[in-house]
C-alpha cells in the first residue's frame, strides 16, 4: 500500500510539469524525488516506456459487429460460363469411414495443388442400412449386419474445362476400393437437404397462411 501512495505524488507532479512547464516553475523542485529530475522533459508517455507496445487491433480495418441471429446463408453459386463449369459437388461415399475421409482429404489437397478453388468441404449424415436374412427354419427375417454409409462432399466453386478431363482421370485412377465417386452440379435443393425439417414451424406457417 505504501508504494502506491508514494508513486501518486510523483506522477501528478510529472504530468503537471509536462503539460505546462511555465506554470510549474512555481512548484518547488523539492517535491520531485531525486531520481527523476534528469528526464522530466523527455517523457512523452505515462507509465512504462513500453506502454501500449503490443497494440495491433487499431491497425485492422473496421468490421461490422457480427449478429448471431443470421441464418446460415448459402455461398453464392457460380454459374457455368463458356470456359468453366459452375459450382460442382464431388461426393465420396462408402462403408469404411477412414478410407472415405482420407480420399476426400486427398481430393481437397489435389484441388489446392492444381489451383481449383474449393468452396466448401462438408459431410452428409451417415445412413445405416440393416442387412436382414431369412431364417432357415422359419419365415421371420433376422438382423444379420448393420452397414453404415458415410458421405463426404467437396464443393468446388469453378473448374476449368481444359483441366476437367485430367482432374477427373486422376480422381478415377486413384479411387480406392469400396468407395463410390460422383460429380454433380450443385443445386439449391442440395443445400436445403442438409438442414433438418422443423414440423412445428412448418405447421405454424401453414396456419398463418390459411
Amino acid at each position: 500500500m505504501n508504494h502506491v501512495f508514494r508513486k501518486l505524488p510523483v506522477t501528478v507532479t510529472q504530468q503537471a510539469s509536462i503539460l505546462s512547464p511555465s506554470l510549474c516553475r512555481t512548484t518547488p523542485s523539492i517535491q520531485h524525488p531525486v531520481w527523476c529530475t534528469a528526464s522530466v522533459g523527455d517523457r512523452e508517455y505515462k507509465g512504462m516506456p513500453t506502454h501500449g507496445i503490443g497494440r495491433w487491433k487499431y491497425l485492422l480495418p473496421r468490421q461490422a459487429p457480427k449478429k448471431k441471429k443470421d441464418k446460415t446463408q448459402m455461398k453464392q453459386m457460380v454459374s457455368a460460363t463458356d470456359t468453366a463449369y459452375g459450382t460442382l459437388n464431388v461426393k465420396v461415399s462408402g462403408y469404411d469411414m477412414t478410407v472415405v475421409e482420407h480420399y476426400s482429404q486427398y481430393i481437397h489437397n489435389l484441388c489446392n495443388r492444381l489451383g481449383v478453388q474449393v468452396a466448401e468441404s462438408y459431410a452428409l449424415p451417415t445412413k445405416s442400412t440393416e442387412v436382414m436374412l431369412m431364417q432357415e427354419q422359419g419365415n421371420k427375417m433376422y438382423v444379420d449386419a448393420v452397414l453404415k454409409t458415410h458421405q463426404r462432399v467437396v464443393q468446388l466453386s469453378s473448374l476449368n474445362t481444359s483441366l476437367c478431363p485430367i482432374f477427373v482421370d486422376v480422381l478415377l485412377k486413384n479411387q480406392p476400393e469400396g468407395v463410390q465417386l460422383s460429380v454433380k452440379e450443385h443445386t439449391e435443393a442440395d443445400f436445403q437437404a442438409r438442414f433438418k425439417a422443423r414440423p412445428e414451424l412448418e405447421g405454424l406457417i401453414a396456419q398463418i397462411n390459411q
Partner: protein
Amino acid sequence: MAAVCLQRLPVITADCSPIEQRFKQMMQQMELEKSLLSDHELRLMEDAERMSRKQGNEYDSDEEEGHGDQEIMLAQDLEDTWEQRFKSFQPAPRVRADLDKDLTSVQRCLADSLVLLAEQQVGAEKLWLLPQAAWQEGETLRQTAERALCSVTAAGFKATFLGNAPCGVYKYKLPKATRTESSVGTKVFFFKAILADSAPGTAPNTALLWVKKSELQKYLKPAYMMKVDRFILSL
C-alpha cells in the same frame, strides 16, 4: 481429325510391393494393439466367465439377471457359424494367366488400366492407332471423337467422355505425294473416355487390342507414341 482414348479402369487393386506389405502388416498390428475391445469380444469374455461360474459349485441361476437370451445363443456359437460361412465362400481368382495373354479381351490384367487400340488404314499403310475419324463441318470435335468410337470399333462400347476439351494433340505432315493446296498435314486431337460397361454387343470388324501403357511402345510409331505417352496416366 479427332481420336478417342478409351480406357478401362482397373477392376481389382494392384498387389502391394514387399515394403508396402511389411508396412501394412506393421500398421495392422499397431492398430490392433492400440484398439479397444469391441462389443462382440466383450460378449465372448462375459460368456466365458459365466460358463466358468456355472461349472463352479456355488451357482445360483436366480442371481443372473437379464441374460436369458444370451444363454441360448452364445457368442462363440455365432462366431462358429460365421467361420463356416466364410469357409464355404469361394472368391473368384484374382489373376487368370490365360486371359492376361489374350490381348483382345477386356478382362485381361484386372489390376491395371488398359487403352483401346485399333488398326486403321492411314494413307497407304495399316497402322495401330487410337481410334480416329475425320472432322466434318458443323460438329464439335467431341462429337467427332464419339463418332470415331462408334464407327471404328463398331462394337457398341458404352463410354463416358470426361470433358469437352481435348487432352492431347498430334500433328503430322502428309507425304509430298498426297499434299494438296489446302492441306499440308493433319492435326489429331485426343479425347479421353472411360469404359462404362465391359460387355461389347457385336463383334468388331477391325482388329482391336487392349494394351497397358508399358505395351504401347510395341504397337505405336515413335513420334505418335511420344505425344500419346504424355496424357495417358499410369497410376
